[in-house]
């Protein structure tokens, strides 16, 4: 008991110390993982998120004079630690939004944010049905979900084959991380499989994905025409190495956008040549925003992580996520008062009314990095565009034009999914008046 009371007292002390030091500051809680099996991918992502905030502070002095602060909390991709981090950071004054960086944590927080009134931004991951803003008031899967991603890969494959009808009788295997993250695309792929008559083989890989011998033995037996890779962290590079060992052609492999960054292919080197993956954004240090980050943050010695990692695929994604958060605050300030600290509810309105057209993106220094985004009360995604990029052994090159997910297929799925969610939870759809709140 003695030990426990000492621990409790000390914990209370640290918690109290954190509660002071509050001024006009917009606080960004940063959930991240820099350790564990997903660290190689989690680290550049977390670095990008931090550097963008530092750059906005250094270059613009914050948002209309409101300084941005942040605190990182290590989750290790574990749901229970993620929940602890959320509980720790949510009560901080001026808390803006959460980016959980993990599908499992997103699921747990989805149940918690409505009571705490803090928005969740899950760019390119999370719950696919949460695109429906009328049912999921606090979730924002901006720029795409696993359903849009899977649809775009299938569109690309169909185009390569010369039309949807050419897919009939083909075999497509989904090698996926055996978790909600990996299973999310399955309903859409099944839908497409029944529509076009291709055979879908599901090959699960136990998390974290270092042991894939059995999965690739199955691939070797089935000889699928295409392999879709739904992996994250060490699973991706392992899969590519196994594909090389199995002799499966890498140019027939298509990864999701979480399986298409530098850490996934670098170790495999030439063995990954020809491997394709979805791309939500560009990479490289040419965009103005990266130049600004280098100039205002890294050149002053305040950068997070190595300088040559600035502009890598996942780093850029982290920057985009943070840009959306910052723009949501800016948008909210336009309505609720410039130069004020926005509450979670006000930021949610901002996220729901983002209007980032090409001109605005150019101003922000994101020219060419992503497509324009405009969200609304019912559409919490804003944009479903993505491209395919291919690894040439040393860098990623775009190998397709932009695709947009087929709303004809996804809309009804989102609607039924959201209806089921609401029915399970005995909840009501938001009424139109709620959109203005």
């Amino acid at each position: 008991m003695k030990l426990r009371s000492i621990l409790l007292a000390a914990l209370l002390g640290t918690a109290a110390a954190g509660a002071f030091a509050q001024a006009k500051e917009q606080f960004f809680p940063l959930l991240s993982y820099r350790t564990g099996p997903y660290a190689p991918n989690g680290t550049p992502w977390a670095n990008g998120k931090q550097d963008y905030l530092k750059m906005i502070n250094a270059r613009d002095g914050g948002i209309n004079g409101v300084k941005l602060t942040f605190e990182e909390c290590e989750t290790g991709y574990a749901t229970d630690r993620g929940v602890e981090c959320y509980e720790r950071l949510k009560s901080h004054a001026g808390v803006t939004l959460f980016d959980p960086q993990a599908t499992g944590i997103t699921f747990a927080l989805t149940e918690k944010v409505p009571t705490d009134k803090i928005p969740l931004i899950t760019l390119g991951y999370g719950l696919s049905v949460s695109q429906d803003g009328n049912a999921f008031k606090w979730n924002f899967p901006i720029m795409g979900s696993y359903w849009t991603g899977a649809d775009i890969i299938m569109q690309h494959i169909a185009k390569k084959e010369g039309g949807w009808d050419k897919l009939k009788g083909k075999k497509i295997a989904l090698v996926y991380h055996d978790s909600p993250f990996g299973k999310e695309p399955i309903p859409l792929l099944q839908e497409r499989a029944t529509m076009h008559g291709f055979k879908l083989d599901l090959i699960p890989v136990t998390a974290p994905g270092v042991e894939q011998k059995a999965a690739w033995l199955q691939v070797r037996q089935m000889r699928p025409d295409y392999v879709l890779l739904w992996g994250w962290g060490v699973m991706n590079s392992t899969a590519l190495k196994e594909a090389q060992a199995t002799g499966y052609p890498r140019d027939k492999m298509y990864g999701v956008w979480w399986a298409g960054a530098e850490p996934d292919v670098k170790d495999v080197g030439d063995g990954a040549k020809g491997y394709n993956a979805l791309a939500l954004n560009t990479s490289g240090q040419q965009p103005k925003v990266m130049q600004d980050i280098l100039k205002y943050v890294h050149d002053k010695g305040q950068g997070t992580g190595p300088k040559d990692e600035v502009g890598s695929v996942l780093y850029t994604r982290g920057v985009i996520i943070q840009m959306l958060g910052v723009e949501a605050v800016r948008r909210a300030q336009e309505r609720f008062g410039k130069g004020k600290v926005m509450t979670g509810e006000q930021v949610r309105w901002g996220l729901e009314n983002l209007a980032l057209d090409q001109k605005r993106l150019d101003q922000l220094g994101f020219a060419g990095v992503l497509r324009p985004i405009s969200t609304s009360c019912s559409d919490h995604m804003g944009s479903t565009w993505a491209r395919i990029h291919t690894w040439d052994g040393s860098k990623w090159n775009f190998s397709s034009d932009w695709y947009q997910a087929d709303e004809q297929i996804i809309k009804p799925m989102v609607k039924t999914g959201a209806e089921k969610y609401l029915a399970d939870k005995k909840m009501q759809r938001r009424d139109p008046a709620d959109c203005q709140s």
Partner: protein
Amino acid sequence: MIYRENGQFKTSYRADQQIFAIVQDRWAIAALLALAFFVVPALASDYFFRAILIPFLIMALAALGVNVLVGYCGQISLGSGAFMAVGAYGAYNFFVRIPNMPLVPAILLGGLCATAFGILFGLPSLRVKGLYLAVATLAAQFFSDWMFLRIKWFTNDSSSGSVSVNNLQVFGLPVESAQAKYWFCLAFLCVLALAAKNMVRGAIGREWMAIRDMDVAAAVIGIRPMYAKLTAFAVSSFIIGVAGALWAFVYLGAWEPAAFSVELSFRLLFMVIIGGLGSIMGAFFGAAFIVVLPIFLNQFLPALVASVGLSISTAGVSHAESMIFGALIVWFLVVEPHGLARLWSTGKQKLRLWPFPH
């Protein structure tokens, strides 16, 4: 010294058989319960409830269950995470499939599902023991991982395998606020801890301990090994199952099978070993050590480093946390292999003799 039993005479068997034979202990426990039920809820912050106290209470309950099996009956189990998962998914299915199912019966039924599962996977214990049994129970872990990932019925046909609950209430009172959740878990913990304590003091507990100490000798004096071992599995997995249901319903809210992975089984085993095998109090110490210490280190280290004018990265804190935590485990086990509970009782013994130690 005040902690002394001089002058406390027991004149009946009843008085002699109390859980806390010394008056001071009874007062201390009463004070502790009053503190836990009334003072803490008035003082603690929201973060403290939701991130520290609630996980601590639930993990203490789970460790209690593991302690019945591993500490009292000597059946080493690495399948505790699976029993928690069965409790959680069992309770979930009762909760969502039966209209207007009340929360408390759903959780208890989840515990009963875990009981059945525990007995099933306890059957190998009749033939194998020690490390062999540990490996056999590992099968329970992998089986439950497989079952909840693959069989869609258990997850109510959720496409991603993740399930969630909301709108928890007991007798019409919502279990939403941090205090309500805390009281809810605390009530479960107190009732089950008392039941477990009485069981291990009673005939059944003595049978478990006889089996643990030497199963052949126990069989010779008339203890049925099958009955003793399977009841230990049943009681233990019921408690662990209830803890699993609480972990899922009250703490996480939404969960996937990975929340009950083999890593959780290991953590539970560490809790009873560090807390003290074969002691009810050990479960509390162990849970506090395993649950609270990493979180404490995670917040204390940056503050400590900042106080000397340096800064430490998130990854650095995380690595340091693992290192210090590991070192502390080794240190504790070297200094006191019987766990924190033994340290506590040694301290008590010394106090009773103070100031004339012998």
